[in-house]
């Protein structure tokens, strides 16, 4: 369908955007890459009175590394992040997930901040942010607020962003030595939303797992950390038996939604397979990064 009538603002600076948000509050939608919002408008699932288009705000784009963190501007387009050597080196889990987002033409416009603010639980970036304990920087007229990933995702397409706040930046911790990663997903067609996805990261030191991170996409209304499995892995040496047990623990408590692509039980089985595959790939990858 054609888009409904909507007013349009194109601020050139964050301060200006935040002023517009304060004026329009929940009547406004922030337009970044538009790859999710414009379909929502076309399908009449979103009814904002005004679009605040942040594409013209140059300060919102870019990738920079400092003090063990990599800051990604909210308007950084996915293809730009995909080509970033800084991200490939310092946040390999994000780099591994980026090529799986939508299709090439979607990544031409889609943005890191847009996907994370849209918060589709089946999407790749929310799982990555949750796995890595990314930090979300939101700005309003009352100042800046830093929200940890654990508190950012609140429900299906819902985040803890307040209506007068603009997501300006997402910070990812830089991967240390011996960190191996893998992003696994099963989808009917390359580029489709995953039936189940998994972000996995293992840090190995002298053959022992020092840090383990597992986050699922597509098994609940938010991205889900597999904390029990992570606890099991830490302090152990990688082995097939260990990864089998981790897969059991990671999927014991999940109750994935059923739809025409698969039943809840099928998704659980896929999730367990992805944990085994993801851990194996991350462990191999960790050896290479020693």
């Amino acid at each position: 369908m054609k888009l409904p009538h909507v007013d349009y603002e194109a601020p050139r600076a964050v301060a200006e955007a935040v002023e517009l948000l304060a004026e329009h509050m929940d009547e406004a939608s922030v337009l970044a890459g538009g790859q999710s919002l414009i379909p929502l408008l076309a399908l009449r699932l979103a009814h904002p009175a005004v679009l605040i288009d942040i594409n013209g705000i140059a300060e919102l784009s870019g990738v920079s590394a400092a003090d063990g963190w990599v800051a990604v501007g909210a308007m950084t387009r996915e293809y730009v992040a995909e080509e970033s050597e800084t991200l490939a080196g310092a946040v390999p889990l994000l780099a591994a997930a980026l090529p799986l987002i939508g299709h090439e033409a979607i990544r031409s416009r889609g943005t890191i901040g847009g996907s994370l603010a849209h918060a589709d639980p089946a999407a790749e970036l929310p799982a990555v942010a949750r796995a890595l304990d990314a930090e979300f920087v939101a700005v309003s007229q009352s100042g800046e607020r830093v929200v940890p990933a654990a508190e950012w995702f609140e429900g299906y397409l819902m985040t803890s962003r307040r209506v007068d706040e603009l997501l300006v930046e997402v910070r990812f911790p830089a991967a240390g030595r011996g960190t191996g990663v893998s992003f696994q997903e099963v989808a009917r067609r390359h580029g489709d939303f995953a039936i189940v996805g998994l972000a996995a990261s293992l840090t190995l030191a002298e053959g022992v797992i020092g840090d383990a991170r597992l986050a699922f996409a597509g098994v609940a209304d938010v991205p889900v950390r597999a904390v029990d499995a992570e606890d099991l892995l830490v302090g152990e040496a990688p082995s097939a038996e260990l990864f089998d047990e981790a897969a059991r623990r990671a999927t014991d408590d999940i109750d994935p939604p059923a739809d025409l692509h698969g039943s809840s039980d099928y998704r659980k089985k896929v999730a367990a397979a992805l944990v085994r595959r993801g851990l194996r790939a991350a462990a191999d990858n960790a050896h290479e990064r020693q």
Partner: protein
Amino acid sequence: MDITLRVNGATCTGSPEARKTLADFLRDDLSLTGTHLGCEHGVCGACTVIVDGRAVRSCLMLAVQAAGCEVTTIEGLGPEGGLGTLQQAMWDSHSFQCGFCTPGMVMQAAAFLSDHPDADERQIREALSGNICRCTGYESIIDGVLLAAERNREHRAGERP
């Protein structure tokens, strides 16, 4: 809102409503109806055009956002009155039946081949995976793009038969 942009090498101006997509602007305001609209919500890929060198879905971009951009549509892809290498290769490979998806397929393939001239079959399948065709079963489309890549390579090597 008044906008100025370049479309297929020519400067164009217009005053689209904010809600008008680039696809509708190209079709309705500039009469460039080669860009097809299938789903109008970013799923089918039929409306793919090239904006500043990148393939984008013109139904997921507002016309006002194209202000200052360089847009190429199917009408501007080949040489005046003829077919470009990719178009000729797809023609020779019978890469279309009803033709509805063709402009999007061609624009997506053109953008992809310009960045990945040595792409293999798997990469081409992946690159075109977001474009839906209901007739061909895709095989002839992939054949056409592979043939274009091969002809481009021969051309670069100066061995054009």
